[in-house]
């Protein structure tokens, strides 16, 4: 018996060596891009200047100045070394960690190259990245709530849009808090519709979600054109004021990046940690995941599958409504037609990229937020790469993830399947 296990184990390794090699090649390719594309033709005299102070910094830090070419060569060298080791031996379980490191090196090299001979406010970039990540991460958390219970929700975009519109309207009429609650409420209502269609009537969940997206786009655009643009006072909410967290916001560099935002940023972090903990360490999470993995098994143990799914979808809708309110009450201070611009779908991509884990989704949200930020900033720096291409980059990464290169992402087993008792 022992010999059988041994041979099987050996062949198992041979198979997964494909992944090891692909990873190694990716590392080397990134190193090569740093070396050749960024490094070649670079004037060795050039220096990169990174500003370390962002809006609201109370302690001013000196700029970070370094020689661009040396840094690029160093980063390329380290990445290449990691790639070579990956090809020869492999990092085993920490492969994904090393991948994260190499990607971080690459992004840093990219920024250094883009800012060669010029100055770039690194702290400001990171702060904006974080802000751009908020709606994407919240959208991903909404998706995680629904899909971990086995209901596919592609209507997050529509729920966000409705949340954005309703919260702006209600906040203009009453105050921001009522507006926020109304935004969360409309998300819940749309989610309930999705729930009734897909849980009770077992309709195709993609169709149901699409219908809600189309309805939401049409309805908000109609109300916007008909009322909000005519009566400006209906579309004039205040933005939630930033709250500086005492002490924490005074930490040099990190403080202003992390602790000088308004309630949406802190809300996202709280929800992120709460959901991660609740999903994997509480009875609530265990039951919800069981319903998403094997509803029949959950049913035989006395867990109410239908109720659990309604609960999860409604919470997911509320999360999407909250994400929508961010646009009007947390960022712009006004509702514009189709202002969510696909962030809900990007949230879903972040959910998949993050393997249906809140923390993973936040990581993906940061990556997407970073690309979003770069696309608008780099145009100003005059970088030769078109900003549209930068916007594409994260989705190319998502496709690579979906193809299973970076370890297969594993959807809940009963995701999207209506539960039938028979």
């Amino acid at each position, binding site marked *: *018996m022992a010999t*059988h*296990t041994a*041979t*099987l184990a050996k*062949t*198992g390794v041979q*198979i*997964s060596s494909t992944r090891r090699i692909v990873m190694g090649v990716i590392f080397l390719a990134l190193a090569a891009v740093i070396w050749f594309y960024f490094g070649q033709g670079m004037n060795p005299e050039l220096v990169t200047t990174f500003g370390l102070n962002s809006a609201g910094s109370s302690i001013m830090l000196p700029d970070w100045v370094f020689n661009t070419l040396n840094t690029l060569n160093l980063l390329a060298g380290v990445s290449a070394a990691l790639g070579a080791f990956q090809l020869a031996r492999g990092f085993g379980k920490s492969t994904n960690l090393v991948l994260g490191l190499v990607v971080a090196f690459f992004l840093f090299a990219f920024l250094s190259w883009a800012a060669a001979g010029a100055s770039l406010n690194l702290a400001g970039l990171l702060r904006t990245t974080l802000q751009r990540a908020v709606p994407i991460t919240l959208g991903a958390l909404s998706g995680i709530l629904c899909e971990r219970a086995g209901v596919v929700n592609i209507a997050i975009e529509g729920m966000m849009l409705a949340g954005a519109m309703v919260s702006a309207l209600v906040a203009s009429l009453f105050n921001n808090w009522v507006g926020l609650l109304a935004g969360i409420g409309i998300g819940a209502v749309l989610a309930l519709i999705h729930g009734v269609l897909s849980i009770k009537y077992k309709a195709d969940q993609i169709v149901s979600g699409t219908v809600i997206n189309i309805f939401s786009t049409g309805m908000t655009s109609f109300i916007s054109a008909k009322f909000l643009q005519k009566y400006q006072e209906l579309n004039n909410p205040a933005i939630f004021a930033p709250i500086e967290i005492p002490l924490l916001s005074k930490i040099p560099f990190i403080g202003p990046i992390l602790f000088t935002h308004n309630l949406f940023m802190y809300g996202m972090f709280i929800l992120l940690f709460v959901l991660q903990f609740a999903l994997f*360490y*509480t*009875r*609530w999470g*265990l*039951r919800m*995941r*069981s319903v998403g*993995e*094997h509803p*029949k*098994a*959950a*049913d*035989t*143990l*006395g*867990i*109410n599958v239908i109720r659990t799914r309604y609960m999860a979808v409604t919470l997911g809708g509320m999360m999407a409504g909250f994400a929508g309110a961010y646009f009007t009450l947390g960022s712009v201070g006004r509702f514009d037609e189709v202002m969510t611009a696909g962030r809900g779908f990007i949230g879903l991509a972040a959910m998949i990229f993050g393997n249906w884990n809140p923390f993973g989704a936040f990581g993906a949200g940061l990556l997407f937020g970073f690309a979003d930020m770069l696309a608008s900033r780099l145009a100003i720096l005059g970088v030769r790469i078109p900003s549209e291409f930068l916007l594409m980059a994260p989705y190319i990464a998502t496709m690579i993830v979906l193809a299973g290169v970076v370890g297969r992402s*594993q959807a809940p*087993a009963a995701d999207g399947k209506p539960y039938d*008792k028979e």
Partner: protein
Amino acid sequence: MAPVLELRGITKRFPGVLANDRIDLTLNAGEVHALLGENGAGKSTLMNILYGLYKPDEGEIIVKGQKLEMQSPTDAIRAGIGMVHQHFMLIPVFTVTENVMLGDETTKLGGVLDRAAAAKRIREISEAYQLAVDPDAYVSDLPVGVQQRVEIIKLLYRNADILILDEPTAVLTPQEADEFFKILKTLTERGKSIIFISHKLREVLEIANRITAIRLGKVVGSTTPKQANETKLASMMVGRPVDLKLDKKPAKPGAVQLKVEDLVVADDRNHVTVDGVSFDLHKGEVLGIAGVQGNGQTELVEAITGLRDPIGGRITLGDGVDITRAHPREFTELGSAHIPEDRQLDGLVLSFPVADNLVLNTYYNRPFAKGIMLQEDAIYEQADRLIAEFDIRTPNAETSVGSLSGGNQQKVIVARELSRPGSLVVASQPTRGLDVGSIEYIHGKLLEKRDEGVAVLLVSSELDEIMQLSDRIAVMYRGKIVDIVDAKTTDKTKVGLLMAGVRDKARS
């Protein structure tokens, strides 16, 4: 002594079917009561009623002297009833502890799971009942036998004393089944009462204290192992005398028709599941591939029939044609037939009429098609002929296959595959889930083909089927063929040991 459980006049109607018709059943403390019946006889419906998954239309359930009104499994669990389903109700991506505690979680303040406490309880149960299992292991990593232990621990964790076991041995090797019977003995010694559902006569005779047979939703008889034997039980179950022995003429093997050399195949998750398999299949013989489900048989058949590309090795037909990476259509056109493992998923298009299903792999040939046009007349003519010849019980050829019974669905596949002239038949689990009548019929057809000089590769996890039909038996274990033995000179014990991967003992 008063029974721990009494079912009185349980009746359950589904649209068009009377699934349970005034069924009475009693269970005494510490006994194993076997419920015997064919697939579709109503055993599972009855047990699902007892477990609170269905509501009966009439009748009452009395547990320990108290009438029980059940709304959901929660009520059954509270009354001390536990059930191990035929298809395990385990979540592969959860650990053993998570699976066991689900629905009855040990928690700390605020609903936070206390995994350590639950794992401790599982270890206690596992020691007390000799059900060895690692609470921290993921269920997907466990062999089926261990998964079954987890299912039983799940019941004991909830302090169930009435255990319903639905076809528990279907996935076990004979040796594992023997182990399992020992576990059942331990359980009954400690006062647990067991309802044991099965259609395997030998097992029922071995383990039960009492036997009740169900046919077409009715109790048709009760007996004890002392008063019964296999033939008696079989005719009780089927409702007519059944000949358990097949009329099998000696084989006249001819030239090699299928040659498999060093075949390596991986499954969807890229795990190697067929690991260097070689064998020859001769014309006019049945080669049985025995083995517990999930030891690579599925992938082996898929590789041979062209559904899955192997990683390495060679597959050739008798005349030297290499079919290692052949398309399924090439495989068919070379005169080979395939009866797939999952008839509903791979064998039929359930929403299509019987007639169309009968030409699924020949529809593009004359006379069924001319150019791009299907010839309905020819298709229906052939359908009527096959329906008569293969005794397919269907209202007509236009009925959708999905509305036929399992046995008749399988007959549609058998008719399609065996009515074509050919020299090779690959039959994978050809009688799974069928009633005794259909099994007899399909076995007869396969032997008929063999006697015509066709090479038959039979893959089955039912050891009885393998023993009855095969001329030679190849036993698969963990992706390898442990041994190929002559069916005439071997017995169940030896093959059973091989199925568990034990080679040397089987030899001696």
